[in-house]
């Protein structure tokens, strides 16, 4: 942190370079605020793209003339905070901390200024000359937003310049502000409350060494136990930083929330106060239908009915009835029933050895069962599901769903962020289990993994269940009710049993957008290709295992062993096979259930009980392996041991209830 060009600059000074080299102006800001447009305005055509030392992240440098002075303009990758963990954010942080720029120009979106000001405060904390360029003012004006530039500038202690980078408006004012800013002293750091400011000042007061960044910024990092900051203090302070680090620990040990969270909250509070004082709106933001609809989808009173409509039309009507009904029916009955399977049967008729022939054709044949399940049953269902999923994804609905369920999820020890793995679980639970590692606390990761394994059906399973029950809306409601109730009850119990802090969720809501056909088609095809390439070999392998099991008698033995359990659920003995399929792959098991129903083996109660049990039953082998990898052997085995009785217990009780009310 204290190396590189840092020695040329001392925090709190002017931005003028110590030597006679050109003034270096860095453009900083969140993604999509128009940094590149401003960079082009300031530099013209002469641009070099380089990798920052030690990273593979690109920054662009260009030469420009500001007020008759030659300057170097540096465009950094977009970032939301100086403390983020992505490579871009680490790179920008290192660049700024190493004194890579003489003047910082934050480019901000005028329409979302309160969200941008938290970063402004972090830049001001750095103690370097800073200018705030408020971009897209024309759009803000169209939204009825008015900005009191003088007031905001006074409150922040830095120049604030409204611009429209794409049109070049305000650029000359900005250039003058940059040159003026470089000659002025750096702004005073912001003051925070709730113990955060006291801790920052207390730690900052004990820093005696020379650092390339302001003491406020360094103190903020130290109280968050930032490794780079600690190393810099250990190198620089006379006592190896012992006193400062002890103070940092002492001042933060009474905090009632994680330090990083407390600081972020204080900064956001300060940013909101600044915005309230200087930004006004003559008509409500979101007068357009897209914004209003976006807000309505995230609000419980309107969002929940909208979610039910989306699920009814998308899952029940489109995936269940069209994908699982009409399309599967045609593929199975016409394509496979009349053409493909008879062709294979004829082809292998010449093989005299029955065991070898049965490997390829017949009841459990590779071609007549494995390929048929994959192509005729699963593919149209997951195809319809992925089309529906991609449509929702491209519309920007998922972040709204995250906000909608955030409150409920909190009671389950999860945050709205857990919607990401849960939604992905509806596509593939194995992938979703891997994604749980993005959740912030261990407790949340364990709970999400458990709920994924227990109550989130994967795309194919969900599709097959929709198809199974497409003609039985009441049975579908019972299935849905039991699965949701299990998710909520077991989740709430899990959150009570597992110790730990409640998660915090904060996300910037992207705009609701009209889905683009090309995006939806590309994403659907990409997902279908991925699924099919993964599923076909596994389905073929499953068929081989089942064939082997039949040949050796092991399969019948296992089916018989499962018999009493299956009978206790009120199911016919044939369903034991389905559960064996299901352990290999959930979707293979679901396809088996689908087959049994079409053969008329199951009545409506049995279909409902089997569907509930199979949904809650232990995950497929791939997901279980992922659970072992992500959560460790002990936790994964404990989940396995818990899930099995919950699944069969729920099936047992449901059978009793449904038989008694029938």
């Amino acid at each position, binding site marked *: 942190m204290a190396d590189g060009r840092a020695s040329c600059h001392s925090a709190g000074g002017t931005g003028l370079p110590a030597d006679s080299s050109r003034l270096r102006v860095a453009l900083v800001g969140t993604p999509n605020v128009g940094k590149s447009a401003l960079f082009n305005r300031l530099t013209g055509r002469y641009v070099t793209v380089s990798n920052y030392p030690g990273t*593979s992240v*690109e920054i662009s440098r260009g030469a420009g003339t500001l007020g008759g002075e030659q300057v170097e303009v540096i465009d950094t990758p977009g970032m939301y905070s100086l403390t983020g963990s*992505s490579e871009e954010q680490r790179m920008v942080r290192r660049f700024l901390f190493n004194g890579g720029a003489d003047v910082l120009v934050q480019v901000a979106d005028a329409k979302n200024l309160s969200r941008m000001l938290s970063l402004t405060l972090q830049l001001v904390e750095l103690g370097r000359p800073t200018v705030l360029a408020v971009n897209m003012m024309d759009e803000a004006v169209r939204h009825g937003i008015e900005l009191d530039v003088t007031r905001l500038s006074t409150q922040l202690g830095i120049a604030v310049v409204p611009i429209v980078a794409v049109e070049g408006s305000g650029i000359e004012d900005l250039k003058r502000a940059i040159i003026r800013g470089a000659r002025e002293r750096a702004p005073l750091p912001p003051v925070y409350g709730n113990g955060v400011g006291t801790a920052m000042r207390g730690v900052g007061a004990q820093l005696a060494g020379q650092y390339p960044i302001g003491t406020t910024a360094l103190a903020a990092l130290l109280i968050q136990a930032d490794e780079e900051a600690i190393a810099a203090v250990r190198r620089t302070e006379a006592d190896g930083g012992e006193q400062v680090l002890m103070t940092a620990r002492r001042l933060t040990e009474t905090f009632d929330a994680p330090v990083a969270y407390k600081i972020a909250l204080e900064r956001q509070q300060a940013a909101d106060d600044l915005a309230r004082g200087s930004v006004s709106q003559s008509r409500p933001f979101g007068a357009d239908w897209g914004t209003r609809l976006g807000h309505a989808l995230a609000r419980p009173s309107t969002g929940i009915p909208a979610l039910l409509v989306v699920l009814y039309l998308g899952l029940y009507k489109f995936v269940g009835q069209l994908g699982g009904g009409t399309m599967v029916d045609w593929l199975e009955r016409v394509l496979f029933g009349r053409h493909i399977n008879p062709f294979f049967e004829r082809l292998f008729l010449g093989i005299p050895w029955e065991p070898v022939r049965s490997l390829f054709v017949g009841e459990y044949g590779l071609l007549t069962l494995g390929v048929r399940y994959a192509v005729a049953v699963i593919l149209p269902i997951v195809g319809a599901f992925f089309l529906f999923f991609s449509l929702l994804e491209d519309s920007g609905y998922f972040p709204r769903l995250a906000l909608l369920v955030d409150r409920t999820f909190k009671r389950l020890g999860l945050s709205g962020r857990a919607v990401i793995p849960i939604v992905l679980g509806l596509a593939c639970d194995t992938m979703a289990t891997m994604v749980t590692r993005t959740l912030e606390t261990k407790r949340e990761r364990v709970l999400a993994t458990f709920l994924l394994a227990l109550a989130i059906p994967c795309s194919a399973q969900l599709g097959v269940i929709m198809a199974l029950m497409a003609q039985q809306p009441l049975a579908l409601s019972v299935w849905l009710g039991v699965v949701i109730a299990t998710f909520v009850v077991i989740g709430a119990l899990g959150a009570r049993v597992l110790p730990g802090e409640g998660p915090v969720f904060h996300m910037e809501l992207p705009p609701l957008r009209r889905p683009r056909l090309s995006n939806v088609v590309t994403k659907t095809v990409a997902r279908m*290709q991925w699924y099919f390439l993964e599923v076909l070999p596994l389905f073929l392998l499953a068929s081989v295992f089942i064939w082997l099991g039949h040949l050796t008698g092991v399969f019948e033995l296992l089916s018989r062993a499962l018999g009493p359990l299956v009978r206790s659920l009120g199911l016919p003995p044939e369903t034991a096979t389905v559960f064996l399929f299901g352990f290999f792959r959930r979707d293979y098991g679901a396809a088996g259930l689908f087959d049994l129903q079409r053969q008329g083996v199951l009545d409506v109660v049995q279909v409902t009980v089997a569907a509930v049990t199979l949904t809650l039953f232990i995950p497929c082998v791939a997901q279980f392996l992922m659970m072992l990898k992500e959560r460790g052997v002990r936790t994964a085995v404990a989940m396995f041991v818990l899930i099995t009785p919950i699944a069969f217990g729920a099936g047992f009780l449901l059978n009793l209830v449904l038989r008694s009310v029938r």
Partner: protein
Amino acid sequence: MSQATARIMICGFCAREFEEDRAQTACGSCLLNGGCRWARCPHCGYENPESPRWMDRLATWVDRHAR
């Protein structure tokens, strides 16, 4: 200094932009280590499907012949 171009992806969940190459850094600890056709958003962790290569080639071909 090295020049490089990278394809920009927009995350299907948080709608933030990221370079497709940057997604690989978020995949470092995965068993497949970036060998799959999914790009994990470095901002929110969402898995975005990359368009299949044959679709990219088809789109290029259509573009070329449509002119």
